[in-house]
């Protein structure tokens, strides 16, 4: 489903007929997903619907059992998250995937450390100074406030950790950022900041996929929303053509108007 005001003729990232099996479990069945340049796509679905699995396929953590991935119109195969990262596809994991025992700067550059070669390139040293400076500039640039980039991540609040995880995802020319329930574990007052960061990504021209259970998140940041149900595509829509109760209905696997049901659910 192409954005109405877009003149791109192919999606930036696309999954075609992706299935994923874990032994006897079918986590995804023939799922299609398109992400267009500069859009924020919301993915919803009940627990176990396969949302996280689909994101892990898109970010190279799991190879699809069937189907294909396309980036910029070309078919691609990811053997590891590194392959996806090389193309500019970054993922912010549900559990954040940060190392609590290390400082903010080291977490931001984990796996892509600034290096300093010594002894004629024989040994590559971690360039602490450069890492700290780069991290500081990067966080300033994103208006993320922390006491010091040398602070250990385990000392941060949930919102600060989420901010570090997001900062980490766009530290290197990211084109797509995939976020798995970025607001689920946050205190209410921290949710707004994270959502604003996501809007900030869109303003930078980065495409975003966001999984969320919170309709407030979806209707605040997304351009489009798609629903998975029991591991398959269920429905999708531009945001302005749908409503909260309709989307909640999709999550529960019904396409009827479920205002009452939704109300029950909230209670």
């Amino acid at each position, binding site marked *: 489903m192409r954005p109405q005001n877009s003149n791109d003729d192919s999606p930036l990232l696309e999954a075609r007929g992706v299935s994923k099996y874990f032994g006897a479990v079918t986590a995804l069945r023939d799922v299609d997903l398109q992400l267009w340049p500069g859009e924020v796509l919301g993915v919803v679905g009940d627990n176990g619907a396969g949302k996280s699995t689909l994101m892990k396929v898109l970010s190279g953590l799991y190879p699809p059992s069937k189907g294909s991935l396309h980036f910029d119109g070309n078919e691609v195969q990811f053997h590891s998250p590194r392959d996806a990262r090389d193309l500019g596809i970054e993922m912010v994991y549900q559990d954040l995937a940060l190392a609590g025992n290390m400082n903010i700067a080291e977490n931001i550059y*984990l796996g892509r450390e600034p290096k300093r070669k010594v002894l004629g390139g024989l040994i590559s040293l*971690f360039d602490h100074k450069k890492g700290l400076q780069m991290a500081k500039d990067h966080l300033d640039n994103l208006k993320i406030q922390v006491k010091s980039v040398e602070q250990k991540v385990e000392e941060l609040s949930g919102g600060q950790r989420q901010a570090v995880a997001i900062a980490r995802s766009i530290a290197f020319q990211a084109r797509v950022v995939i976020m798995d329930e970025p607001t689920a574990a946050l205190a209410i007052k921290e949710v707004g900041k994270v959502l604003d960061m996501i809007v900030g990504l869109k303003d930078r021209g980065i495409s975003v996929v966001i999984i969320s259970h919170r309709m407030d998140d979806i209707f605040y940041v997304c351009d489009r929303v798609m629903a998975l149900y029991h591991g398959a595509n269920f429905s999708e829509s531009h945001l302005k053509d749908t409503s909260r109760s309709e989307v909640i209905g999709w999550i529960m696997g019904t396409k009827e108007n479920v205002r009452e049901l939704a109300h029950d659910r909230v209670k």
Partner: protein
Amino acid sequence: MTESSNHEMNNEVPWHVRMIPFFDRYGILIVIVVMCLVLWAMQPEVFLSWRNISNIFKQTAANGMLSIGMFLVILTAGIDLSVGSVLALGMMTLAVSNASGVPWPIVLCLSPFMGMLAGFVNGVGITKLRMPHPFIMTLGMLFMARGLANLISGGVPYSGLPDPVRFLGSAQIYLGEFDGTRYNLPIVFLFTIFVYLVFWILLEHTVFGRRVYAIGGNPEAARVSGINVDQTLIIVYTICGFMAGVAGLIMAGRTNSGFPNAGQGMELEAIAAVIIGGASFFGGRGQVLGIFGGVLIMGLIRNGLNLNDVSTFWQQILIGGIIVLAVFIDVLRRDWGTRS
């Protein structure tokens, strides 16, 4: 408003919590100094004699090698139970090959090489054979290496090694004579300092070292960051085995022999030194300098107990108690530190 509440919060932090950073930094040093003072008070003649001090260095060197390798493994939240046996395997390979006429430059390298090989097998087993825990693989290696050491030697000790092979474990630098005492500095002491310096650079300043800490902190995070966790672990266990082989070379040099039951129980002493030195069994925590302190403390305990004629039975009981105490202190520290 915020300022005053901050102020209140600071007042609420009890003194023992505010002391944590201080003790993290200087705790081990304080323990070492106190131990030295106590031992000195108990044995003023002997303890601070140069002969005794250089003895401590010589006796702790092998444990120092095992401990720093063990530290690397424990940083990744792993464990290597095989280092004592691997030490023996290295030592016996060295002694047997020497007895059968292999030239000394090769003999010299054989112990570290066998150690490296055993460590590599451990690493491959843990990652590629997907052993459920490093405990299993290295427990297997504990038996296999000990068995091999006995097999190649027929279970008997070999003695008599050429000087170049003994160099690392027994050579001394003559410093001079003052007041009728001859001062010799064991080479192995300088070597230990050198090794710890290398490990410090490796862990604090190389990309590899930082990744070892990251794997210990959160292996999933390391993996999704594109770090090759398996490869890193294989290198870590290989280095640990290598250090056990070096310990075998040192012990062979010091005793001028190879004996197949060498190093028995030393894996536990190395683990004790690492834990006393402030590393965490959960991985990702600890510093090279702390481990050095842990090794010294273990050495001082042994030395002090020997000087005071405490029986080995009591020594075992005491060391066991100290290990439990060290970990309990770590538990308290963590409790106080994470108080919200």
